[in-house]
């Protein structure tokens, strides 16, 4: 199995093979001497040049993995080139998309569609876990859409507004 692993800005190519229950690993084309053990569901142990790494992991979906070990954690995007998982669409327009930073409820709107807004100006107030937070415009421009109404529940990452 060949995977592309993206962690932060770095993309690594990883080749996994299994022979008689033992895994061997190639990282970026180079064999990696490591002993691998799945010690319990959600935990993998790696011995790498004598160092012990115990990773706790959780997968939100097949292409995204959370990993934590020894006081560090990261998110990894995993692509299997052979399976050609859907490429993520990339938005490159002059339009700034403002998404909900948290799941919550829209308390009130602070601007109307068509209004000229300044960078940092509050566009709406979102409440979650009893805290009210102003969601501010990322740039100066015109508020071209506002996809939320007072009282509406929104999920993390949901589109709230667009400023052009």
């Amino acid at each position, binding site marked *: 199995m060949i995977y592309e692993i993206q962690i932060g800005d770095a993309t690594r190519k990883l080749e996994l093979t299994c022979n008689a229950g033992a895994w061997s690993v190639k990282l970026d084309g180079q064999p990696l001497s490591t002993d691998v053990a799945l010690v319990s569901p*959600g935990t993998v142990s790696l011995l790498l040049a004598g160092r012990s*790494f115990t990773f706790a992991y959780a997968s939100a979906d097949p292409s995204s993995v*959370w*990993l934590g070990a020894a006081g560090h954690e990261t998110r990894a995007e995993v692509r299997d080139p052979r399976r050609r998982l859907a490429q993520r669409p990339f938005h490159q327009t002059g339009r700034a998309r403002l998404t909900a930073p948290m799941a919550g409820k829209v308390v009130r709107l602070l601007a109307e569609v068509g209004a000229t807004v300044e960078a940092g100006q509050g566009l709406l107030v979102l409440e979650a876990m009893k805290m009210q937070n102003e969601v501010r415009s990322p740039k100066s421009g015109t508020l071209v859409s506002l996809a939320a109404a007072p009282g509406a529940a929104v999920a993390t990452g949901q589109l709230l507004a667009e400023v052009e």
Partner: protein
Amino acid sequence: MPSPTSTTPPFQKILIANRGEIAVRLLRACRDLAIASVAVYSDADRASLHVLLADEAYRLGPAPAAESYLDIDRVLDAARRSGAQAIHPGYGFLAENPAFAAACRDAGLVFIGPSPESMAALGSKTAARRLAQANHIPILAGTVDAVASLAEAQAIAARIGFPIMLKAAAGGGGKGMRLVASAAELPSAFALAGAEAGAAFGDASVFLERAVLQPRHIEIQILGDRHGSLVWLGERECSVQRRHQKIIEESPAPRLSDPTRAAMGQAACAISAAARYHNAGTVEFLVDADERFYFLEVNTRLQVEHPVTELVTGLDLVQLQIRIAAGEPLPFAQADIVRRGHAIECRICAEDPEQNFMPSPGPVARLVSPAGPGLREDSGIYQGWTVPLEYDPLLSKLIAWGEDRPQALARMRRALREYQLGGLRHNLGFFRRIFDDPEFCAGRTDTGSVARLLAQPPPPSLAPDAAWQDAAAVAAALATAAALPPEPAAAPAVSAWQRAARTDSLR
């Protein structure tokens, strides 16, 4: 110190009118005292840990707190149905509501906390400030009464000068609280503070006071019985805050002289005695750079950070609360109280440090809790549970004890390294950074420390090294391989790993 005098349980059954980690903490105290515990829950909390651990559990109502945990009639109805003799309110929700304490009394139930009269005298910050003034305890310039309108707030702010602090007259926890640096910021801050206070406490009134810059927040734990005996159990420094909410508390306070500590303890006892206070309470002070202290407010309840005091005094504050509520006398006097070592607590919250600590509810997909010498964890979560978005983001409290501050910090550092929490955003990484900060380790903190730390880029020493990055890439691939969908006729004995290996060998 003498142990509690009574050996018979003070009650047979106690209802816990709360949720999350504090409800779990309270029912554990009940179990230690051989008292049956009754949990209550909203529809969002059916699977919550406090419901799973309690002896009995009763549904209150829908998820919104106003229709469940804040609904006095529903809580009292659950108490009647369960046959509980007493109610512990925890913190938040109804804990500082004198009407609830009075309703318990009227229903023939013991409220584990102060009397409604003491709560009314101390619970409102404006009333407490008046009482402090009358007892010659220093307070900050500002309004003693809630301000009625923005115009009034503007007039008062112009008189006492900026910066000012806006605060909710009812409740605490940073909700309804805003630092206002200039007159231009006042209108929007006043509206937000009022709305937040109204949503959180059902009372939108706010007051304002002159803000002390770079202040330290130090509080005194007090405990009094129903027979007039009142002691203070040392202080807690709670200066490390974000969004005006404490995230790290410790005792003793670094850099506090013994005379100041004693003077604060005496002031705390004086204001509590003036309100004829009994049960556990906390008197909060601001301390400036010259160790002058100013009375802030009294929290007429058990505090979130009470374990810090428990670890340095060796006392179980919740058990003592229960015994005091049953009418037992305090089993010790001020001179008997010995504080030993240093304790420090981290509040682990479902929030995103990269998004200005916004709450971030979600699934607890993976949880590995730390253990070992000098550690305590008061948690309200378990792996597989989903944190609801309706309530406070506090997930768990991690508390470390050491013979001295460096040992307590080292143990916390070790615990933060062991702790793994995946599936939702949390502040563990932020704590790791704080415990690596030379200023914090030297005890030089004030309420602006977090903001100053966040203004700097994280030190490179905190980033994982190349070997960790390599190992993470391998672990990510293995995790994906292990998560392959089950084969149609997969035998239960075949693990995902074996399936992954088999799939691979077929390629």
